[in-house]
């Protein structure tokens, strides 16, 4: 489809990013979660998965869902530069989503982590996969990270010992409103990778195929009584 000149002016520059190589993780319940990069063609199922959580204030799901919804929409509509989305799927059903973007070849900007399944460390696994993509695959030197929930602060800032960069404000600030900004450096990643990041590659074709067609969850533990028709 032809893109008119005005639309071209609205779009950000796009640098080709290396693809994230899919991996699989055995969750505690014995099920296999495939972690792979989501494509633009899958935005509908991603947004549909996120949408019900807009109404869940518990554990800050509402703000994370609302922001991730808008970020993925912005990616779809070419209103954000160099964003990538990773998805975790169990038998094709989305268990969690993370998104992020590359600011420049040396700097990543971590956006959001949304665990749909809870109690299986899906959020922690997907955050680690996101950092793996930034530093190991894209080769960035560091990633700026913020937390919007106490759980996030404990999981990222404390457990990864992220460097506090808030003293550098406003010159150094995360894109999510300039809230206290922390950084995962390559050195910190090297220190924590073994205890935080796992997964087996390559994923056998038959297992990868289970995640070919992503599906929205029918139920959410965060939303008792909700059932997708």
């Amino acid at each position: 489809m032809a893109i008119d000149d005005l639309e071209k002016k609205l779009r950000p520059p796009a640098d080709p990013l290396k693809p994230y190589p899919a991996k699989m993780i055995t969750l505690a319940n014995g099920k296999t979660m495939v972690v792979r990069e989501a494509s633009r063609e899958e935005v509908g199922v991603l947004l549909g998965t996120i949408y019900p959580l807009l109404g869940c204030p518990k554990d800050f799901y509402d703000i994370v869902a609302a922001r991730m919804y808008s970020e993925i929409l912005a990616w779809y509509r070419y209103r954000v530069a160099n964003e990538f989305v990773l998805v975790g799927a169990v038998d094709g059903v989305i268990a969690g989503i993370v998104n992020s973007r590359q600011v420049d070849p040396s700097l990543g900007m971590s956006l959001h982590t949304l665990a749909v399944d809870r109690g299986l460390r899906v959020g922690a696994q997907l955050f680690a996969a996101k950092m793996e993509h930034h530093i190991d695959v894209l080769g960035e030197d560091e990633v700026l990270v913020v937390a919007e929930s106490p759980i996030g602060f404990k999981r990222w800032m404390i457990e990864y010992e992220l460097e506090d960069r808030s003293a550098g404000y406003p010159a150094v600030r995360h894109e999510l409103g300039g809230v206290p900004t922390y950084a995962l450096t390559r050195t910190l990643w090297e220190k924590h990778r073994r205890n935080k990041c796992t997964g087996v590659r390559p994923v056998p074709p038959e297992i990868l195929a289970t995640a070919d067609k992503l599906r929205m969850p029918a139920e959410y533990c965060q939303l008792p009584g909700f059932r997708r028709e």
Partner: protein
Amino acid sequence: MIDFSVYETKQLEIYAYRCPECRAEYYPAPMLCAKCHCRRDPSGIVHKDWDPFPLEGACTLLTWTRVWALPEGYDRPCEMFGIVEFPNGLRAAGRLEAASPVMGMALVARVEESTERPGPPAKVFVFSEA
């Protein structure tokens, strides 16, 4: 008489107590001696106070852990803790600093001030390699 020594800056110490009657030693101090039933009087007014003595120095590691799920106040991913036994048979729990902890290893106990927990700074044992 006012005890002005409470305003002095003192060396950090954690005290064990000795029963003045039968010399049995305790950490932390009970109210009654388990052996002779002598009562401790923290004020030292009604009854003779027990003899405090600093608990420190050489000790042996009985058991230990590295805790990754620390409570609020600890802004680091993990911290080691251990239980030790002193040569006088008294035991104590505290923080552990050792590259490769092994049960039975020789350690040295010192006291530091900790501000992690709510309230005023607490005196904590730190057990490090001898």
